[in-house]
């Protein structure tokens, strides 16, 4: 594809519901990142995958957040028992490899609203 694709673009859920957000990275990109961007703030790191391995999940705010990338391509970020504070834009980024030399390419994000 032309770039990182995220779906859905918008998601509204009631508090307590589970949601799943999808990220389709650029083909061949080894590294995949998830960021959370609250209103008026910069993106904050959630988790990182190198192929199918989740090497860093230090930014996940609670055990209600879970991410996977089972085949080393598409990734899903799942939030269980959503809370109002989970409302944010969730950004996915991919890069050819880890490290400084490879720029991260961002998707359009999923705007999640919890009622």
């Amino acid at each position: 594809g032309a770039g990182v694709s995220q779906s859905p673009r918008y998601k509204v859920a009631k508090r307590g519901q589970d949601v799943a957000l999808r990220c389709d990275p650029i083909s061949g990109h080894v590294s995949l990142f998830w960021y959370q961007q609250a209103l008026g703030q910069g993106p904050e790191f959630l988790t990182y995958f190198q192929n199918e391995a989740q090497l860093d999940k230090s930014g996940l705010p609670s055990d209600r957040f879970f991410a996977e990338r089972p085949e080393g391509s598409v990734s899903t970020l799942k939030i269980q028992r959503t809370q109002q504070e989970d409302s944010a834009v969730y950004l996915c980024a991919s890069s050819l490899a880890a490290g400084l030399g490879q720029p991260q390419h961002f998707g359009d994000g999923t705007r999640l609203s919890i009622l």
Partner: protein
Amino acid sequence: AQRVTQPEKLLSVFKGAPVELKCNYSYSGSPELFWYVQYSRQRLQLLLRHISRESIKGFTADLNKGETSFHLKKPFAQEEDSAMYYCALFMGGTSYGKLTFGQGTILTVHP
């Protein structure tokens, strides 16, 4: 802990005027810094990175380790420069390339 501070939430200038978007960082290691930009209705994209020492769209940024700053500058602003700008810090080692972002500065260039 690492931190990136962009002290100005909003910045307005007139077309043709110089513009400087401030960025300060806090990091104990050797920093690598980036500027990302988000134009209206577009996704976040890389503008420039300090290791490249490049000028993109007339913008430059110099890393000043003494002042722990990485300010973005352009001598003559254009209306199409209006956007949200984020300064970001990359940490090497075991961080795998994750970025720490500042809060962003909304730049508005008036005609």
